[in-house]
């Protein structure tokens, strides 16, 4: 229970550092954060799945990410998982933890992408360790709820 505050502060320090050191270019900063998340996601899912049975299919993997993985990182499950059954999944979190202390509404909306990049990487890294190549993006219309879109890349 208690470990959460340091992680949150570390995460905001990460963002602060990346944005302060690299000059300007927004896209590259996002990529850096995303890559860090990717590495963490890879490691974390390895630890998390070490005692679980083999997954049946892609959907089974996505469910695992929405339940166990999300609970491990954010202490709650994804609120809504949708898919078109053609490799696109939308994960909706109505109270995303990295945003919930920022604002409840549209204030600071322009800063939201920074707070999502790391998590996009987490998901992509986690999936990649489970043999699923993907592109993960996120969008926010009103904080603190947000949607992560996972596009599975066919190999």
């Amino acid at each position, binding site marked *: *229970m*208690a*470990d*959460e*505050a*340091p*992680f949150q*502060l*570390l*995460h905001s*320090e*990460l963002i*602060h*550092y*990346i944005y302060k*050191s690299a000059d300007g270019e927004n896209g590259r900063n996002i990529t*850096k954060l995303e890559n*860090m*998340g990717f*590495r*963490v996601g890879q*490691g*974390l899912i390895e*630890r*998390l799945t070490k*005692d*679980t*049975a083999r997954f049946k299919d892609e959907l089974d993997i996505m469910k*695992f990410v929405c*339940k*166990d993985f999300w*609970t*491990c*990182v954010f202490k709650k499950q994804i609120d809504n998982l949708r898919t078109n059954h053609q490799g696109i999944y939308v994960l909706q979190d109505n109270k995303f933890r990295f945003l919930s202390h920022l604002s409840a509404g549209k204030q600071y909306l322009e800063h939201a992408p920074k707070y999502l990049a790391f998590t996009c990487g987490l998901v992509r890294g986690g999936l990649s360790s489970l043999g699923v190549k993907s592109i993960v993006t996120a969008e926010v219309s009103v904080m603190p709820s947000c949607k992560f879109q996972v596009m599975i890349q066919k190999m």
Partner: protein
Amino acid sequence: MSRQSNRATDSKKMNSELFTLTYGALVTQLCKDYENDEEVNKQLDKMGYNIGVRLIEDFLARSSIGRCQDFRETADVIAKVAFKMYLGITPSVTNWSPAGDEFSLILENNPLVDFVELPDNHSALIYSNLLCGVLRGALEMVQMAVDVKFAQDTLRGDSVTEIRMKFIKRIEENLPAGDDQHIYIASVGLNAS
């Protein structure tokens, strides 16, 4: 379902692994960004400081611990309450200086280094230096200037991990100019009655 039930028990451990891994990603990034280890150490300390000045508020709010009477009590609170709360470990407090202004925290197992092995070319890197910054920043917010550094580190071949803390001075509370005047007026009022 069975999957979930056996997960709940070790969720706390998992969470500290998340922290460990994230910290590892940060250090890796810093090592990429800076050529030399000294710079990385400095940066880690700075980031720790930023975390510390914010973490202290969380700590005071949750632990309901008041002002410490002396440095010994401070040491106890840090080791037994703060480290326990945030990292799940209780370091031992030893090596007091005769004047009582300096002590060591001995960390049995530092959770920040759980999956870490230092490559040979980073011999000067103080991997967990963030902790020093956190301690320094947090104590500064309760009016204590303290010097914190790693004296030993198992990552670098020492037998234990030791953080050395030295009390420098008590930071005076600076009252804003307006408040000074206010106090002065109040005291005159008291004398008159």
